[in-house]
Protein backbone atom coordinates (compact mmCIF):
# COMPACT_ATOMS: atom_id res chain seq x y z
CA UNK A 1 0.00 0.00 0.00
CA UNK A 2 0.98 3.60 -0.50
CA UNK A 3 2.96 5.28 2.24
CA UNK A 4 0.93 8.02 3.91
CA UNK A 5 2.50 11.44 3.51
CA UNK A 6 1.62 14.77 5.02
CA UNK A 7 3.28 18.12 4.15
CA UNK A 8 6.90 18.23 3.03
CA UNK A 9 9.78 20.30 4.43
CA UNK A 10 8.15 21.05 7.76
CA UNK A 11 9.70 18.64 10.27
CA UNK A 12 11.92 20.20 12.94
CA UNK A 13 14.17 17.14 12.97
CA UNK A 14 17.85 18.05 13.12
CA UNK A 15 20.65 15.53 13.10
CA UNK A 16 24.33 16.12 13.79
CA UNK A 17 26.18 13.19 12.28
CA UNK A 18 29.47 14.12 13.94
CA UNK A 19 28.01 13.19 17.32
CA UNK A 20 26.66 9.85 16.13
CA UNK A 21 28.43 6.82 17.57
CA UNK A 22 26.40 4.31 15.60
CA UNK A 23 24.46 2.76 18.48
CA UNK A 24 21.38 2.42 16.27
CA UNK A 25 18.80 3.47 18.86
CA UNK A 26 17.20 6.00 16.49
CA UNK A 27 16.69 3.31 13.86
CA UNK A 28 15.12 1.10 16.51
CA UNK A 29 12.63 3.59 17.97
CA UNK A 30 11.44 5.50 14.88
CA UNK A 31 7.92 4.38 13.92
CA UNK A 32 8.37 5.65 10.37
CA UNK A 33 11.86 4.36 9.53
CA UNK A 34 13.24 7.87 9.08
CA UNK A 35 16.74 6.66 10.00
CA UNK A 36 18.86 3.81 8.69
CA UNK A 37 22.38 2.64 9.44
CA UNK A 38 25.11 3.11 6.90
CA UNK A 39 28.40 1.72 8.12
CA UNK A 40 28.97 3.08 11.62
CA UNK A 41 26.67 6.08 11.29
CA UNK A 42 22.93 6.67 11.22
CA UNK A 43 21.61 8.38 8.11
CA UNK A 44 18.33 10.16 7.49
CA UNK A 45 16.33 8.32 4.85
CA UNK A 46 13.37 10.65 4.53
CA UNK A 47 12.80 13.67 6.79
CA UNK A 48 9.32 14.23 5.41
CA UNK A 49 8.12 11.04 7.08
CA UNK A 50 9.03 12.41 10.53
CA UNK A 51 5.97 12.90 12.75
CA UNK A 52 7.95 14.61 15.50
CA UNK A 53 7.13 12.08 18.22
CA UNK A 54 10.55 12.74 19.72
CA UNK A 55 11.50 9.10 20.37
CA UNK A 56 14.83 9.34 18.52
CA UNK A 57 15.97 12.50 20.27
CA UNK A 58 15.06 11.18 23.72
CA UNK A 59 16.81 7.88 23.14
CA UNK A 60 19.99 9.24 21.60
CA UNK A 61 22.61 8.98 24.39
CA UNK A 62 24.89 11.42 22.56
CA UNK A 63 22.41 14.23 21.85
CA UNK A 64 23.01 13.99 18.11
CA UNK A 65 19.33 14.43 17.33
CA UNK A 66 16.94 17.22 18.19
CA UNK A 67 13.29 17.67 17.34
CA UNK A 68 10.44 19.74 18.72
CA UNK A 69 8.08 16.98 19.84
CA UNK A 70 4.36 17.54 19.80
CA UNK A 71 0.97 16.30 18.72
CA UNK A 72 0.00 16.51 15.08
CA UNK A 73 -3.61 17.01 16.06
CA UNK A 74 -5.64 20.00 14.88
CA UNK A 75 -8.15 19.87 17.77
CA UNK A 76 -5.36 19.62 20.31
CA UNK A 77 -3.61 22.63 18.79
CA UNK A 78 -6.85 24.65 18.67
CA UNK A 79 -7.68 23.81 22.29
CA UNK A 80 -4.17 24.67 23.42
CA UNK A 81 -4.45 27.97 21.58
CA UNK A 82 -7.76 28.74 23.29
CA UNK A 83 -6.38 27.83 26.70
CA UNK A 84 -3.22 29.81 26.09
CA UNK A 85 -0.75 26.97 26.38
CA UNK A 86 2.76 27.48 25.10
CA UNK A 87 3.21 24.00 23.75
CA UNK A 88 0.27 22.44 21.95
CA UNK A 89 -0.86 19.24 23.62
CA UNK A 90 -3.89 17.05 23.88
CA UNK A 91 -6.75 17.94 26.20
Amino acid at each position, binding site marked *: *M*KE*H*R*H*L*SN*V*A*TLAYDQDRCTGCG*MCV*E*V*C*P*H*AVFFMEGKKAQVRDRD*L*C*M*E*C*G*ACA*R*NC*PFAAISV*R*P*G*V*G*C*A*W*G*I*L*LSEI*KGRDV*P*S*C*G
Partner: protein
Amino acid sequence: MTEKAPDQNLNPLSQKTGQEPAVSCECGPECCGWATPKGKAERFIREADHWIESRLETPAGPVAVVKTKISRQDILGTVKARFGVGRMSYKVKPGLYAAGRPGPSSPVLVSANYKLSFDSLRRELGGLDAWILVLDTQGINVWCAAGKGTFGTDELVRRIGQSNLGRVVSHRVLVLPQLGAPGVAAHEVTRQTRFKVVYGPVRAADIKDFLSAGMRATPGMRRVRFTLKDRLVLTAIELTNPFKYLVLITAAVWVLGLFGLRLLSWKAWYPYLGAILIGGFLVPVLLPWIPGRAFAWKGWLLGVIWAAFVNFSQGLLPLTAGSWQQAASHFLLLPAISAFLAMGFTGSSTYTSLSGVLKEMRYALPFVLGSASIGIVFLAVVLFRGL
Protein backbone atom coordinates in the same frame (compact mmCIF):
# COMPACT_ATOMS: atom_id res chain seq x y z
CA MET B 1 -21.79 9.03 32.98
CA THR B 2 -18.56 9.45 34.82
CA GLU B 3 -17.44 12.86 35.91
CA LYS B 4 -14.95 14.80 33.96
CA ALA B 5 -12.38 17.19 35.30
CA PRO B 6 -13.50 20.80 34.82
CA ASP B 7 -11.14 21.40 31.95
CA GLN B 8 -12.43 18.43 30.04
CA ASN B 9 -15.06 20.45 28.25
CA LEU B 10 -13.92 19.21 24.89
CA ASN B 11 -15.55 19.52 21.57
CA PRO B 12 -17.34 16.20 21.15
CA LEU B 13 -15.50 15.77 17.90
CA SER B 14 -12.23 15.78 19.71
CA GLN B 15 -13.02 12.73 21.78
CA LYS B 16 -11.34 10.30 19.55
CA THR B 17 -10.65 6.83 20.60
CA GLY B 18 -7.29 5.44 19.82
CA GLN B 19 -6.67 1.87 19.12
CA GLU B 20 -4.17 -0.07 21.04
CA PRO B 21 -1.49 -0.79 20.25
CA ALA B 22 -1.18 2.52 18.62
CA VAL B 23 -2.66 2.27 15.26
CA SER B 24 -4.13 5.64 15.88
CA CYS B 25 -4.52 8.24 18.39
CA GLU B 26 -2.15 10.92 19.09
CA CYS B 27 -5.28 12.44 20.51
CA GLY B 28 -8.13 10.41 21.91
CA PRO B 29 -10.12 9.93 25.09
CA GLU B 30 -7.02 8.15 26.26
CA CYS B 31 -4.93 11.00 25.12
CA CYS B 32 -7.01 14.00 25.86
CA GLY B 33 -6.24 13.80 29.53
CA TRP B 34 -9.14 12.08 31.18
CA ALA B 35 -7.29 12.17 34.42
CA THR B 36 -8.81 11.35 37.77
CA PRO B 37 -10.82 14.32 38.98
CA LYS B 38 -9.20 16.10 41.86
CA GLY B 39 -10.33 15.08 45.30
CA LYS B 40 -11.56 11.69 44.11
CA ALA B 41 -9.92 8.50 45.22
CA GLU B 42 -8.32 6.85 42.25
CA ARG B 43 -10.35 3.91 41.03
CA PHE B 44 -9.09 0.83 39.31
CA ILE B 45 -10.95 -2.16 38.06
CA ARG B 46 -11.14 -4.50 41.04
CA GLU B 47 -7.96 -6.45 41.38
CA ALA B 48 -9.73 -9.70 42.20
CA ASP B 49 -11.26 -9.46 38.80
CA HIS B 50 -12.13 -11.87 36.08
CA TRP B 51 -8.88 -11.67 34.15
CA ILE B 52 -6.85 -12.93 37.09
CA GLU B 53 -6.27 -16.67 37.10
CA SER B 54 -4.27 -17.34 40.24
CA ARG B 55 -1.40 -16.10 42.37
CA LEU B 56 2.27 -16.84 42.14
CA GLU B 57 4.67 -16.61 45.08
CA THR B 58 7.85 -14.67 44.29
CA PRO B 59 10.75 -13.38 46.38
CA ALA B 60 8.96 -10.02 46.22
CA GLY B 61 5.64 -11.38 47.43
CA PRO B 62 2.57 -12.76 45.66
CA VAL B 63 2.01 -11.72 42.06
CA ALA B 64 -1.29 -12.05 40.17
CA VAL B 65 -1.23 -14.42 37.20
CA VAL B 66 -3.33 -13.11 34.35
CA LYS B 67 -5.43 -15.09 31.91
CA THR B 68 -4.23 -14.94 28.33
CA LYS B 69 -7.69 -15.43 26.89
CA ILE B 70 -9.99 -12.47 26.41
CA SER B 71 -13.40 -13.14 27.96
CA ARG B 72 -16.81 -11.79 27.08
CA GLN B 73 -16.52 -9.44 30.04
CA ASP B 74 -13.29 -8.03 28.60
CA ILE B 75 -14.95 -7.43 25.25
CA LEU B 76 -17.94 -5.76 26.88
CA GLY B 77 -15.57 -3.55 28.85
CA THR B 78 -13.67 -2.65 25.69
CA VAL B 79 -16.85 -1.63 23.89
CA LYS B 80 -17.98 0.46 26.86
CA ALA B 81 -14.62 2.19 27.20
CA ARG B 82 -14.49 2.88 23.48
CA PHE B 83 -17.81 4.62 23.65
CA GLY B 84 -16.82 6.56 26.72
CA VAL B 85 -18.76 4.69 29.43
CA GLY B 86 -16.71 4.48 32.62
CA ARG B 87 -13.67 5.24 30.55
CA MET B 88 -11.73 6.97 33.30
CA SER B 89 -11.71 4.06 35.69
CA TYR B 90 -10.91 1.52 33.00
CA LYS B 91 -7.47 0.98 34.33
CA VAL B 92 -5.44 -1.77 35.85
CA LYS B 93 -3.60 -1.38 39.13
CA PRO B 94 0.06 -0.65 38.33
CA GLY B 95 2.68 -3.18 39.37
CA LEU B 96 3.99 -6.61 38.52
CA TYR B 97 1.86 -9.36 36.95
CA ALA B 98 2.65 -12.79 35.59
CA ALA B 99 1.59 -14.69 32.49
CA GLY B 100 2.01 -18.46 32.57
CA ARG B 101 4.55 -19.65 35.16
CA PRO B 102 7.47 -17.25 34.84
CA GLY B 103 10.74 -17.72 36.70
CA PRO B 104 13.85 -15.64 37.40
CA SER B 105 15.01 -15.84 33.78
CA SER B 106 11.66 -15.06 32.12
CA PRO B 107 11.36 -11.88 30.08
CA VAL B 108 9.82 -8.72 31.55
CA LEU B 109 7.32 -6.93 29.32
CA VAL B 110 6.34 -3.38 30.21
CA SER B 111 2.83 -2.06 29.56
CA ALA B 112 0.48 0.83 30.27
CA ASN B 113 -2.35 0.56 32.78
CA TYR B 114 -5.14 1.34 30.33
CA LYS B 115 -7.08 -1.92 30.40
CA LEU B 116 -7.23 -2.04 26.59
CA SER B 117 -3.44 -1.79 26.35
CA PHE B 118 -3.07 -4.45 29.02
CA ASP B 119 -5.59 -6.74 27.26
CA SER B 120 -3.90 -6.36 23.89
CA LEU B 121 -0.65 -7.53 25.46
CA ARG B 122 -1.87 -10.42 27.63
CA ARG B 123 -3.98 -11.92 24.85
CA GLU B 124 -0.76 -12.47 22.91
CA LEU B 125 1.00 -14.28 25.74
CA GLY B 126 -0.76 -17.66 25.56
CA GLY B 127 1.77 -20.47 26.09
CA LEU B 128 4.45 -18.03 27.19
CA ASP B 129 6.01 -17.49 30.61
CA ALA B 130 6.62 -13.81 31.17
CA TRP B 131 6.41 -10.99 33.68
CA ILE B 132 4.32 -7.93 32.93
CA LEU B 133 5.30 -4.66 34.57
CA VAL B 134 2.35 -2.28 34.40
CA LEU B 135 3.20 1.41 34.65
CA ASP B 136 0.81 4.00 36.01
CA THR B 137 -0.14 5.89 32.87
CA GLN B 138 -3.41 7.11 34.39
CA GLY B 139 -5.45 4.86 32.17
CA ILE B 140 -3.91 6.14 28.96
CA ASN B 141 -2.49 3.97 26.19
CA VAL B 142 1.22 3.57 25.59
CA TRP B 143 1.80 5.96 22.71
CA CYS B 144 -0.31 8.79 24.06
CA ALA B 145 1.11 8.34 27.54
CA ALA B 146 4.65 8.38 26.16
CA GLY B 147 3.87 11.68 24.43
CA LYS B 148 2.62 13.07 27.72
CA GLY B 149 5.56 11.60 29.61
CA THR B 150 3.48 9.44 31.97
CA PHE B 151 4.82 6.37 30.22
CA GLY B 152 8.22 7.75 30.97
CA THR B 153 11.67 7.31 32.43
CA ASP B 154 10.71 8.44 35.94
CA GLU B 155 7.63 6.25 36.22
CA LEU B 156 9.52 3.23 34.89
CA VAL B 157 12.40 3.72 37.33
CA ARG B 158 9.93 4.17 40.21
CA ARG B 159 7.92 1.07 39.25
CA ILE B 160 11.05 -1.10 38.96
CA GLY B 161 11.89 -0.11 42.53
CA GLN B 162 8.39 -0.47 43.96
CA SER B 163 7.82 -3.90 42.44
CA ASN B 164 11.18 -5.19 43.66
CA LEU B 165 11.80 -6.44 40.16
CA GLY B 166 15.50 -6.88 40.86
CA ARG B 167 14.66 -9.64 43.35
CA VAL B 168 12.12 -11.35 41.10
CA VAL B 169 14.29 -11.76 38.03
CA SER B 170 17.95 -12.64 37.75
CA HIS B 171 18.55 -10.92 34.40
CA ARG B 172 18.55 -7.13 33.80
CA VAL B 173 16.54 -6.68 30.60
CA LEU B 174 13.19 -4.94 30.08
CA VAL B 175 11.14 -5.20 26.92
CA LEU B 176 9.23 -1.98 26.26
CA PRO B 177 6.70 -1.40 23.51
CA GLN B 178 8.44 0.62 20.81
CA LEU B 179 5.77 3.29 21.00
CA GLY B 180 6.78 3.99 24.59
CA ALA B 181 10.08 5.39 23.31
CA PRO B 182 8.96 9.05 23.04
CA GLY B 183 8.66 9.06 26.84
CA VAL B 184 11.54 6.85 27.91
CA ALA B 185 15.26 7.50 27.61
CA ALA B 186 16.63 3.96 27.54
CA HIS B 187 20.17 4.97 28.51
CA GLU B 188 18.83 6.96 31.44
CA VAL B 189 16.86 3.95 32.76
CA THR B 190 19.99 1.83 32.52
CA ARG B 191 22.06 4.43 34.33
CA GLN B 192 19.57 4.63 37.20
CA THR B 193 18.51 0.99 37.56
CA ARG B 194 21.07 -1.12 35.65
CA PHE B 195 18.16 -2.58 33.67
CA LYS B 196 18.78 -2.52 29.94
CA VAL B 197 15.83 -1.37 27.85
CA VAL B 198 15.05 -3.26 24.66
CA TYR B 199 12.32 -1.83 22.47
CA GLY B 200 9.95 -4.50 21.29
CA PRO B 201 7.59 -4.38 18.32
CA VAL B 202 4.99 -1.68 17.73
CA ARG B 203 2.14 -4.20 17.80
CA ALA B 204 1.64 -6.63 20.66
CA ALA B 205 0.66 -9.26 18.08
CA ASP B 206 4.34 -9.49 17.07
CA ILE B 207 5.63 -10.04 20.60
CA LYS B 208 5.98 -13.82 20.31
CA ASP B 209 7.94 -13.63 17.06
CA PHE B 210 10.07 -10.90 18.58
CA LEU B 211 10.91 -12.99 21.64
CA SER B 212 11.55 -16.20 19.74
CA ALA B 213 13.89 -14.33 17.38
CA GLY B 214 16.06 -13.49 20.39
CA MET B 215 14.50 -10.06 20.97
CA ARG B 216 15.00 -8.92 17.41
CA ALA B 217 12.35 -6.98 15.54
CA THR B 218 11.97 -7.09 11.78
CA PRO B 219 11.71 -3.68 10.03
CA GLY B 220 8.00 -4.37 9.54
CA MET B 221 7.48 -4.77 13.30
CA ARG B 222 8.98 -1.32 13.80
CA ARG B 223 6.65 0.54 11.47
CA VAL B 224 3.40 2.15 12.52
CA ARG B 225 0.59 1.54 10.06
CA PHE B 226 -2.65 3.28 9.29
CA THR B 227 -4.70 0.80 7.35
CA LEU B 228 -8.19 1.02 5.94
CA LYS B 229 -9.42 -1.11 8.83
CA ASP B 230 -7.75 1.18 11.38
CA ARG B 231 -9.42 4.17 9.81
CA LEU B 232 -12.82 2.50 9.65
CA VAL B 233 -12.71 1.62 13.35
CA LEU B 234 -11.59 5.12 14.27
CA THR B 235 -14.21 6.93 12.24
CA ALA B 236 -16.99 4.67 13.47
CA ILE B 237 -16.13 5.59 17.03
CA GLU B 238 -15.44 9.17 16.19
CA LEU B 239 -18.79 9.67 14.53
CA THR B 240 -20.83 8.42 17.48
CA ASN B 241 -20.69 11.74 19.27
CA PRO B 242 -21.53 14.05 16.34
CA PHE B 243 -24.11 11.48 15.32
CA LYS B 244 -26.07 12.02 18.54
CA TYR B 245 -26.39 15.70 17.66
CA LEU B 246 -27.23 14.93 14.05
CA VAL B 247 -30.10 12.69 15.13
CA LEU B 248 -31.39 15.42 17.46
CA ILE B 249 -31.16 18.13 14.82
CA THR B 250 -32.74 15.95 12.15
CA ALA B 251 -35.56 15.08 14.54
CA ALA B 252 -36.03 18.77 15.35
CA VAL B 253 -36.12 19.60 11.64
CA TRP B 254 -38.74 16.94 11.11
CA VAL B 255 -40.88 18.10 14.04
CA LEU B 256 -40.66 21.72 12.87
CA GLY B 257 -41.78 20.49 9.47
CA LEU B 258 -44.86 18.93 11.08
CA PHE B 259 -45.78 22.33 12.43
CA GLY B 260 -45.46 23.80 8.99
CA LEU B 261 -42.19 25.56 9.69
CA ARG B 262 -40.40 24.60 6.52
CA LEU B 263 -37.48 26.88 7.24
CA LEU B 264 -35.32 23.84 7.72
CA SER B 265 -36.79 21.27 5.41
CA TRP B 266 -35.08 17.95 4.75
CA LYS B 267 -34.07 19.36 1.38
CA ALA B 268 -32.34 22.25 3.10
CA TRP B 269 -30.76 19.99 5.71
CA TYR B 270 -29.42 16.93 3.92
CA PRO B 271 -26.62 18.86 2.13
CA TYR B 272 -25.11 19.62 5.55
CA LEU B 273 -25.59 16.10 6.80
CA GLY B 274 -23.67 14.97 3.71
CA ALA B 275 -20.87 17.47 4.29
CA ILE B 276 -20.45 16.21 7.86
CA LEU B 277 -20.32 12.59 6.74
CA ILE B 278 -17.80 13.46 4.05
CA GLY B 279 -15.44 15.25 6.46
CA GLY B 280 -15.88 12.83 9.34
CA PHE B 281 -16.10 9.53 7.52
CA LEU B 282 -15.47 9.54 3.78
CA VAL B 283 -12.22 11.53 3.83
CA PRO B 284 -10.65 9.43 6.62
CA VAL B 285 -11.60 6.21 4.88
CA LEU B 286 -10.43 7.28 1.41
CA LEU B 287 -7.46 9.21 2.84
CA PRO B 288 -4.57 7.83 0.77
CA TRP B 289 -6.52 7.88 -2.47
CA ILE B 290 -7.71 11.49 -2.42
CA PRO B 291 -5.18 13.64 -4.27
CA GLY B 292 -3.16 16.16 -2.26
CA ARG B 293 -1.44 16.10 1.14
CA ALA B 294 -3.30 18.42 3.52
CA PHE B 295 -6.32 16.88 5.27
CA ALA B 296 -8.30 20.11 4.95
CA TRP B 297 -7.66 20.17 1.22
CA LYS B 298 -8.86 16.58 0.87
CA GLY B 299 -12.02 17.49 2.77
CA TRP B 300 -12.55 20.63 0.72
CA LEU B 301 -12.14 18.75 -2.55
CA LEU B 302 -14.78 16.13 -1.75
CA GLY B 303 -16.96 18.83 -0.18
CA VAL B 304 -16.97 20.96 -3.32
CA ILE B 305 -17.86 17.92 -5.44
CA TRP B 306 -20.71 17.24 -3.02
CA ALA B 307 -21.87 20.88 -3.25
CA ALA B 308 -21.91 20.69 -7.05
CA PHE B 309 -23.92 17.47 -6.86
CA VAL B 310 -26.39 19.02 -4.41
CA ASN B 311 -26.83 22.11 -6.55
CA PHE B 312 -27.44 20.07 -9.69
CA SER B 313 -29.91 17.74 -8.05
CA GLN B 314 -31.81 20.64 -6.50
CA GLY B 315 -32.00 22.42 -9.85
CA LEU B 316 -29.85 25.31 -8.63
CA LEU B 317 -27.39 24.85 -11.49
CA PRO B 318 -27.14 26.41 -13.99
CA LEU B 319 -27.44 29.56 -11.92
CA THR B 320 -30.49 31.72 -12.23
CA ALA B 321 -31.30 35.14 -10.83
CA GLY B 322 -33.56 33.51 -8.26
CA SER B 323 -31.35 30.66 -7.13
CA TRP B 324 -27.75 31.76 -7.20
CA GLN B 325 -27.64 32.80 -3.54
CA GLN B 326 -28.63 29.33 -2.39
CA ALA B 327 -26.18 27.68 -4.78
CA ALA B 328 -23.46 30.00 -3.47
CA SER B 329 -24.29 29.18 0.14
CA HIS B 330 -23.83 25.49 -0.67
CA PHE B 331 -20.56 26.07 -2.48
CA LEU B 332 -19.17 28.16 0.38
CA LEU B 333 -20.50 26.28 3.39
CA LEU B 334 -20.43 22.59 2.48
CA PRO B 335 -16.74 22.32 1.51
CA ALA B 336 -15.80 24.46 4.54
CA ILE B 337 -17.57 22.02 6.86
CA SER B 338 -15.98 18.91 5.37
CA ALA B 339 -12.56 20.60 5.22
CA PHE B 340 -12.74 21.52 8.91
CA LEU B 341 -13.84 18.05 10.01
CA ALA B 342 -11.26 16.35 7.81
CA MET B 343 -8.57 18.53 9.37
CA GLY B 344 -9.63 17.18 12.75
CA PHE B 345 -8.71 13.70 11.63
CA THR B 346 -5.03 14.70 11.75
CA GLY B 347 -5.24 13.85 15.45
CA SER B 348 -6.30 10.29 14.72
CA SER B 349 -3.73 9.74 12.03
CA THR B 350 -0.41 8.14 12.84
CA TYR B 351 1.80 10.18 10.60
CA THR B 352 1.15 13.93 10.96
CA SER B 353 3.64 16.09 12.84
CA LEU B 354 2.98 19.15 14.96
CA SER B 355 4.82 21.32 12.42
CA GLY B 356 2.84 19.86 9.54
CA VAL B 357 -0.53 20.37 11.20
CA LEU B 358 0.42 23.90 12.29
CA LYS B 359 1.28 24.77 8.72
CA GLU B 360 -1.89 23.20 7.40
CA MET B 361 -3.98 25.11 9.94
CA ARG B 362 -2.28 28.40 9.12
CA TYR B 363 -3.53 28.15 5.55
CA ALA B 364 -6.76 26.22 6.00
CA LEU B 365 -8.35 27.93 9.00
CA PRO B 366 -8.64 31.48 7.57
CA PHE B 367 -9.90 30.01 4.32
CA VAL B 368 -12.46 27.74 5.99
CA LEU B 369 -13.71 30.44 8.35
CA GLY B 370 -13.88 33.06 5.58
CA SER B 371 -15.70 30.73 3.23
CA ALA B 372 -18.14 29.67 5.95
CA SER B 373 -18.83 33.26 7.04
CA ILE B 374 -19.72 34.43 3.54
CA GLY B 375 -21.73 31.23 3.06
CA ILE B 376 -23.74 31.98 6.19
CA VAL B 377 -24.55 35.46 4.85
CA PHE B 378 -25.93 33.91 1.66
CA LEU B 379 -27.81 31.31 3.67
CA ALA B 380 -29.35 34.08 5.78
CA VAL B 381 -30.46 35.88 2.60
CA VAL B 382 -32.10 32.69 1.32
CA LEU B 383 -33.81 31.95 4.63
CA PHE B 384 -34.96 35.54 5.00
CA ARG B 385 -36.50 35.46 1.54
CA GLY B 386 -38.24 32.22 2.41
CA LEU B 387 -40.13 33.84 5.28
